């Protein structure tokens, strides 16, 4: 327990929130890169369809998204069955840390993919072609050409995905189950305090969130200025 301004604060939801947000950001960067790259280089008229699909979580109310996740991840459903087939002990993702990450990945997907996509669109094709004539393979293309040119995109994607997951409420509410130390995130803890009329705790916890998030955003935008890359 922490004591801040004479108010007792349980730090566990803070750690859970940070772990979920960090893991989600990592996963989103890994799966976001190929999706964003494909979208950025796509010339087919189907591109709009995929762009719209990626943006869908922006439209859907989080509790609705959470409700469908709750239904699709239930222990008798197809997802659970597939996971059991792959060796997961019971296949249930709801009420677990992994379930929260899965939910957050859906929820924050556009926040990671869109900045990456815009960054990738700025990478000149001529540069890639030139590198290829020097027999650069895919890995070195990515690490030595694409990544340095799209640093800002990566930074923005990571920040937005992280921040958006920290502030997540609806999805966590639906699939989390509010288990202390496992799935109880800060947003839920604040909600609980408000519900039980413990306004002092709610205020302090909100203040911690605000200061922390502001510090993160500030340092990232500071870095962003340094990374200002000029192409061409």
């Amino acid at each position, binding site marked *: 327990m922490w004591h801040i301004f004479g108010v007792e604060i349980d730090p566990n939801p803070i750690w859970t929130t940070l772990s979920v947000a960090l893991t989600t950001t990592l996963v989103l960067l890994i799966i976001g890169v190929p999706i964003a790259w494909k979208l950025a280089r796509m010339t087919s008229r189907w591109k709009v369809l995929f762009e719209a699909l990626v943006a869908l979580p922006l439209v859907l109310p989080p509790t609705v998204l959470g*409700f469908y996740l*709750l*239904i699709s*991840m*239930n*222990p*008798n*459903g197809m997802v659970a069955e597939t996971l059991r087939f792959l060796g997961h002990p*019971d296949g*249930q993702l*709801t*009420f677990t840390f992994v379930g929260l990450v899965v939910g957050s990945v859906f929820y924050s997907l556009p926040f990671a993919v869109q900045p990456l996509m815009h960054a990738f669109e700025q990478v000149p094709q001529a540069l890639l072609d030139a590198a290829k004539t020097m027999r650069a393979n895919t890995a070195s293309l990515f690490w030595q050409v694409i990544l340095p040119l799209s640093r800002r995109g990566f930074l923005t994607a990571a920040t937005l995905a992280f921040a958006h997951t920290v502030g997540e409420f609806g999805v966590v*509410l*639906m699939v989390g*189950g*509010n*288990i202390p130390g496992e799935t109880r995130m800060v947003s*839920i803890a604040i*909600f*609980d*305090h*408000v*519900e*039980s*009329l413990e306004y002092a705790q709610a205020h302090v916890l909100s203040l911690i969130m605000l200061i922390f998030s502001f510090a993160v955003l500030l340092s990232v935008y500071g870095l962003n200025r340094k990374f200002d890359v000029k192409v061409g």
Partner: protein
Amino acid sequence: MTLKSLLAASIVALTPMSVLADELKIAVAANFLKTIETLSQGFEKQTGNTIKVSGGPTGKLYAQIENGAPFDIFFSADQKSTKKLEDDGKIKAGSRFIYAQGRLSLWMPNVPAGVEAADVLKKGDFKHIALANPKAAPYGVAAEQTLDKLGLLETLRPKFVMGENIGQTYQFVATGNAQMGFVAHSYTVDPKHVNTGSYWLVPLSYHSPLDQDVVVLKKAENSKTAQAFIDYVRSAEGKKIIEASGYTVPN
């Protein structure tokens, strides 16, 4: 004449009642939402007044009322928030009373009727049991007290998953994510909600009473319609509706 005013004029002309008809805004705790809708329909039919119902978690509604929400009546899920409103002078003097006592019920969709709930709980042959978060909902407190009475609270705690309200708790069970759960009897009494397995209506002696308070808010202090609705809730017809919805009405 615009279409809108034409429409308004014709409505006034066609319904003589509307001159007298009034509109009430009612805030209601999520667990009583369905029941209040039935009550409002009965009242609207009798009086020609319109009722607008806003459902939500008690704590949220309380915060909204404290900050000037335009409600006339507040049906709470507890007594804490209504007492606070009374202390703050936000209600019509003397209007606070218990309109219903909630009943707690353990819904077990996979257990056939006739099996003792206490045995099922003792056996512990399930992964998750859902309850409302005791911090946010009185039904959660009652569920913990019930398990405590059975001597199973700490044994079963690792299996807890908690909804923020009784509706969400019901959802966890209804979607199969939890194998059983403590819900409001207003759910288990309704075959639309509960039609599989069995349920255990927890005896009142297992937990402290789930007293639910109603208050008329300051804004409606002089409203005859608000008082008429309260009278309707207390009438024989109102009592019948509340009891049929799975609540006890104290005398």
